[in-house]
């Protein structure tokens, strides 16, 4: 979709046009689902969270003023919603990091495991402890700064940096094993 087509679709969707919103959904579902899956590590939960994201986007769309690009605005909603769900997910909070190995969704990760190092890395990310994984995903894959991550995860900026450093060390260790 061109920028003009996106603008038109946004305006139509703001007026309640579901077909236009479907176009926007198709355009962005891949990126939204990616962050949801990487944070939740579970296909069913990632699907549920992705749907929740788009319902929120639909509800908030009339308030979108175009101060930032639509993609940026949508991605911000997706990140915050995914983190809220990730935080609510008690399973991740109470699991011993050493036992996390193998708990993530093998089917989804299989979709990228054929891609050499990237596939191995995708699986290794899911073996990370919950907070280190969240920090790593947000910083290395989603492009957030540590200050923003600290705010999103309600942790200190220094903790975010430490968790990222720890995540990289663990990933290198996991990948060395394989």
């Amino acid at each position, binding site marked *: 979709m061109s920028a003009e087509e996106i603008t038109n679709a946004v305006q139509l969707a703001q007026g309640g046009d579901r077909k236009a919103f479907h176009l926007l959904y198709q355009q962005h579902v891949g990126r939204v689902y990616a962050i949801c*899956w990487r944070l939740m590590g579970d296909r069913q939960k990632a699907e549920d969270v*992705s*749907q929740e994201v*788009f319902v929120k986007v639909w509800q908030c769309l009339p308030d979108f003023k175009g101060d930032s690009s639509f993609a940026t605005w949508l991605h911000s909603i997706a990140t915050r919603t995914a983190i809220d769900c990730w935080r609510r997910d008690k399973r991740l909070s109470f699991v011993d990091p050493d036992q996390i190995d193998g708990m993530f969704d093998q089917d*989804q990760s299989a979709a990228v495991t054929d891609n050499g*190092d*990237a596939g191995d890395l*995708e699986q290794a990310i899911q073996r990370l402890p919950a907070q280190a994984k969240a920090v790593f995903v947000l910083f290395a894959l989603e492009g957030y700064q540590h200050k923003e991550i600290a705010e999103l995860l309600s942790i200190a900026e220094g903790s975010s940096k430490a968790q990222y450093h720890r995540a990289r060390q663990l990933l290198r260790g996991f*990948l060395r094993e394989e």
Partner: protein
Amino acid sequence: MKSEQELDQAIAALPREMQPQRDLWRDLEKQLPERRHVRKRQMSLVNQALALAAVLALVVVVSWRVLVVPDNADMPVATTDVPDPVDDQLPPQYAIVQQYETLVAEQQGMLSRSTGFVGDWQYQLATWDSAIGQLRTALDYYPDDPQLLAQMQGLYAQQLDYLHLISSVEPNGYYYSGEEL
């Protein structure tokens, strides 16, 4: 993977998008609430109509002052004791503004307690304010134009007269002229 550089390369190779294994749209569409955009649009049209009416009223008032009442002699005279607008320290228009704004503010302060019975007095005052604003803009270009100064003084006088009038009306509708004292 042995080096940081190799890890960075692997991170860069990760896909930024993943497609869900099933179509989420069908379930999603059922969850989308109806949008009440029609009502919002109607409100917007009402606001537009009100704005248009206010602009037209302003144009009529200003036009009437400029075209029908051309000189100072025909201007209505304030019934209140208003100080002489001429002030050696200030340009004439600022002297007028300073003197009348104080009186208008004092009069408005007296009104604030019970004004529900006199209708749209705030709208009326706003109309005068707008007209005065237009004249002030004109006076910025022609600061010594006697006709413009007289018109501005006349508008202030009308506004003050109106404020005196509505402050003399009791909530029960009785007109209090002041002569009873």
